[in-house]
């Protein structure tokens, strides 16, 4: 099978098919919410330099359930982002497989959207044109692009900045564009790589609330890499806690409570100190 084709429920989709390009979530409608959508099996990543071979990710397996927001937390430099980049297809794992439904992921594609810590927006395009980029690539006609980008501009509070240039925006605004640009494609899964890591604490909180708001109206599957345990507790259905490098799965925690959540609720304080004390024990700075 060529890499531009994928088989779902016995039907072939090719790269030119609009269903594949800009509504890939439709390919997995047969999978019920809460069932595994993405399966990561025996993932290994080693980095090779002239001097040494470093094992970054050590035989990790876990599922991502449809419609959930799963956070990945772990000590600094443990390989959180490496796992995310493997899922995105931007990095080839040394061994192991990543399946979305029945499809094996080999290269990057629009079925795995990504939000970057440093935004990775195109400065030569306006806000609207950034959001429409994926649709443009997929060959969606202009009127439909407009209509769809308009919805996301509104959902992310960007309607007054549609024609602004990226360098005119604040960091928080930039990441709203980044989130809209990924979401508009309706990918099967959205990968967020420390999306609020470059923002100040207040902007961070506001963006977390915006994300919760968007998820209220639209069910999405999200993998969220973060340094912040508070952020993970505020946003996630489940938290994947990793050990220090080479990363192994220490624990998967179910986070109770519907969103939006009360950040100060006592049950979160309990979980918070539990995770933090584990991360502290794994901190390589004290080795």
């Amino acid at each position, binding site marked *: 099978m060529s890499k531009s084709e994928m088989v779902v429920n016995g039907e072939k989709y090719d790269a030119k098919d609009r269903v594949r390009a800009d509504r890939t979530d439709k390919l997995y409608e047969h999978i019920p919410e809460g069932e595994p959508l993405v399966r990561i099996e025996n993932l290994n990543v080693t980095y090779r330099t002239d001097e040494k071979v470093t094992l970054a990710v050590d035989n990790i397996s876990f599922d991502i359930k449809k419609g959930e927001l799963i956070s990945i937390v772990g000590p600094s430099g443990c390989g959180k982002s490496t796992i995310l980049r493997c899922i995105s297809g931007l990095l080839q794992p040394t061994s192991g497989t990543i399946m979305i439904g029945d499809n094996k992921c080999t290269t990057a*594609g629009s079925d*795995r959207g990504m939000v*970057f810590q440093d935004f990775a927006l195109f400065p030569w395009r306006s806000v609207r044109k950034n959001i429409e980029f994926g649709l443009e*690539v997929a060959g969606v006609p202009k009127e439909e692009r407009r209509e769809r980008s308009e919805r996301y501009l509104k959902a992310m509070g960007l309607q007054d900045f549609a024609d602004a240039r990226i360098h005119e925006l604040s960091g928080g605004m930039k990441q709203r564009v980044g989130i809209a640009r990924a979401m508009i494609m309706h990918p099967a899964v959205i990968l967020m790589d420390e999306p609020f890591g470059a923002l100040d604490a207040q902007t961070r909180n506001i963006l977390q609330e915006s994300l919760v708001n968007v998820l209220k109206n639209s069910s999405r599957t999200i993998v969220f890499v973060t340094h912040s345990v508070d952020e993970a507790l505020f946003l996630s259905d489940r938290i994947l806690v990793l050990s220090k490098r080479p990363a192994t799965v220490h624990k998967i925690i179910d986070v109770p409570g519907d969103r939006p959540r009360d950040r100060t609720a006592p049950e979160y304080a309990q979980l918070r100190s539990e995770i933090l004390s584990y991360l502290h024990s794994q901190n390589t700075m004290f080795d």
Partner: protein
Amino acid sequence: MVSLKYDENNRTHRMLRTLLIVVASLAVFLVLWWVVTTVMHDKNFPPPDKVFKALWNLICNGDPIGGHTLWEYIRTSLTTFLYGFALALVVAVPLGLLLGYVKPLREFTAPWIEVVRPIAPIAWAPIFVLSFGSKLGPALVVFIGIFFPLLTNIIFGVQRIDKNWLDASKTLGAGQGTLFVKVVLPATVPYILNGVKVGLGVGWMCIVAAEIYNKFGGIGQYLVDMVNNGLMENAFAAIIIIAVLGLLTTGIAEYVSKWVSRRMGMDA
């Protein structure tokens, strides 16, 4: 009462200041020129007043020997220049993007580029004029002059592209072709324009040198004619024209380059 105090935050004040500096600088230059030539008292180095008189005469009455107008000389030079420039643009832009993007190709061609690039473009002038004639020859010299700075700037620009832009595009469904057109090309535009800016300066140096081998036309040929006939005032008038035209071309390129980069949000 009107205050004469300089205000750094006032746009008009800043512009007036710049203008004043330029005028003063040129005035001092003219005085130095006059002093040096007067002391030297050599007829090969005429003082400014004689040169400007010859320049005025050239503008009003044209070439004192051949009878061509100044405009004819300038037009010939500019046409040659534009041909060379257009050719450099057409060849260097796609080639630079390709070499910047495809590493094996870049590595393979690097020795060729590194061997040919350091050769002064002017060294090609006698060969090109002999082989391709006095129209195409000088244009090819200009081409060589513009081509290498342009090419190296573009290759550099492609390599400097933010990898995150490429990653983001891939996760938005872009294949190699789309990536090239929608990301690599626009991301490299500021570097292309910078290459053009540098290239125009070098190209303008080449045109005059190449035209020295011309039998007719071009400001460079006019310069040589005047020297050969001992009309040094006219030769220096030609040098002033060459300087002004060169300043104009690079000035325009600089302005366009800055304007476009700012418009594209990449002037950092």
